[in-house]
């Protein structure tokens, strides 16, 4: 028996493929954000709802090598605050900010002195946080930068949503042969040349009709 929705997720997995392209998209977003703000680092943290933790999903700049995959409690640090209040925030001199959990900073080996953070909002869900660390010290923060940060956060939220969908689909498939058949079928039809693809789709429509789908 499969749960409702699992078959569709399986088809999605077959069509969408692996999560790699979406991870690459996240990396590209933080790369552009860092470059545009002239910052030393930028990262995207995702909320793991099961463990109530934030996980470094994409990192560019200082801390790049060891931050990826690192986790900390979602109620901790500036990222946790931004996530809970769904509000973007800019702080100068983060080292004196108690929200910037000192032990987290020490773990990462990198303590920034300035930080911009915005929530990744998709519909009514808060998926994670986009951070830009250490903008040039001489530049005073302006509303224009806040707007840019928001735009990046929106873009990142869309990419994160796709990544999470791909992951969910992969998880559904894991260890379920009956479902993976559907995924393979979707992937196979999707990969066919135009002519054969139409034939393949007709075959699927016939199958659906046989199974009682009235739209076929």
């Amino acid at each position, binding site marked *: 028996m499969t749960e409702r929705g699992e078959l569709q997720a399986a088809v999605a997995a077959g069509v969408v493929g692996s999560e790699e392209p979406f991870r690459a998209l996240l990396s590209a977003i933080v790369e552009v954000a860092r470059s545009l703000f002239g910052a030393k680092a930028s990262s995207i943290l995702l909320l793991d709802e099961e463990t109530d933790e934030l996980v470094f999903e994409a990192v560019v700049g200082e801390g790049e090598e060891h931050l990826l995959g690192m986790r900390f409690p979602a109620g901790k640090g500036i990222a946790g*605050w931004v996530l809970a209040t*769904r*509000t973007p925030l*800019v702080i100068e001199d983060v080292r*004196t*900010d108690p*929200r910037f959990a000192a032990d987290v900073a020490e773990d990462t080996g990198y303590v920034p002195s300035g930080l911009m953070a915005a929530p990744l909002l998709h519909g009514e869900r808060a998926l994670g946080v986009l951070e830009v660390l250490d903008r040039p010290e001489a530049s005073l923060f302006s509303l224009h930068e806040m707007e840019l940060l928001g735009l990046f*956060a929106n873009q990142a939220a869309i990419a994160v949503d796709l990544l999470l969908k791909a992951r969910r689909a992969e998880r559904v498939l894991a260890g379920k042969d009956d479902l993976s058949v559907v995924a393979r079928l979707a992937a196979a039809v999707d990969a066919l040349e135009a002519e054969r693809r139409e034939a393949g789709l007709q075959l699927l429509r016939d199958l659906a009709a046989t199974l009682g789908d009235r739209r076929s």
Partner: protein
Amino acid sequence: MGDVAGHRWDASQTALPAWSLPKDAVDRIALPAEWPEQVTREWAFGGSTGRGARVCILDSGVEAGHPSVGELERSVVVTVGEAGEVVVAEDTEGDVSGHGTACAGIVRALAPECSLASVRVLGANFAGSGAVLLAGLHYAVEQDFDVINMSLSTTKKPFAAVLHELADSAYFRRSVLVASAHNMPVESYPWRFSSVISVGSHEEPDPLAYFYNPTPPVEFFGRGVNVQVPWSGGRTLTVSGNSFATPHLSAICALILAKHPELTPFQLKNVLYLTATNVGGGR
């Protein structure tokens, strides 16, 4: 939320039905305020220190005794148990992030003699933060504060209807809800409701500069960029964001209400409009 909807100024006080006005009753709703020919800042809050106005900071807690904050009228923490029960207890932890202290400090700087209270709705698990926010606002509305500063919002649609009801309850009970607008194009609440005073940021360094926005939903802009604020641990930081513009407007509301306690939220909003920097604020 029916218990929240009791009105401090309803029929039981005026002996009038709330929905009609008999001919012989007109003098019973005579307004106490004498309005000048021209509403100026001098009339609105000249000489006011905020004394007598009660301001609630609904946030991460407030560090009582911080030199830039002073003493608090009260400090409570709101939590929601596993069975959904709301627990309001004395807050012994103070500020769990620093943000509430920053908001309290901004209000204190502009309205040095107002009464400040803290209702902490942050610091527990992320998952329950929406329910705690609702419970905290419910509690704050019941306490009849003059001003409730809400430098946060939620994007969860299921909460919107209850928040809307709470915002209206606050409005009818003469509690002014001052809420941060979102500076990202997302649907969030309660700032989008017309019964609250919604606040975005401007870049001017003057803490008493505030602008009326003729194209809502954001109705006012307050100082929200590169603001020096007190932080927990006796520290000071430079911060930016709408959540810091909001307490500027909360403080101005406190100044006005301290001088004119009879004003309803509707009237207060009008005074804010008439005295806004881009309207008549220079007079």
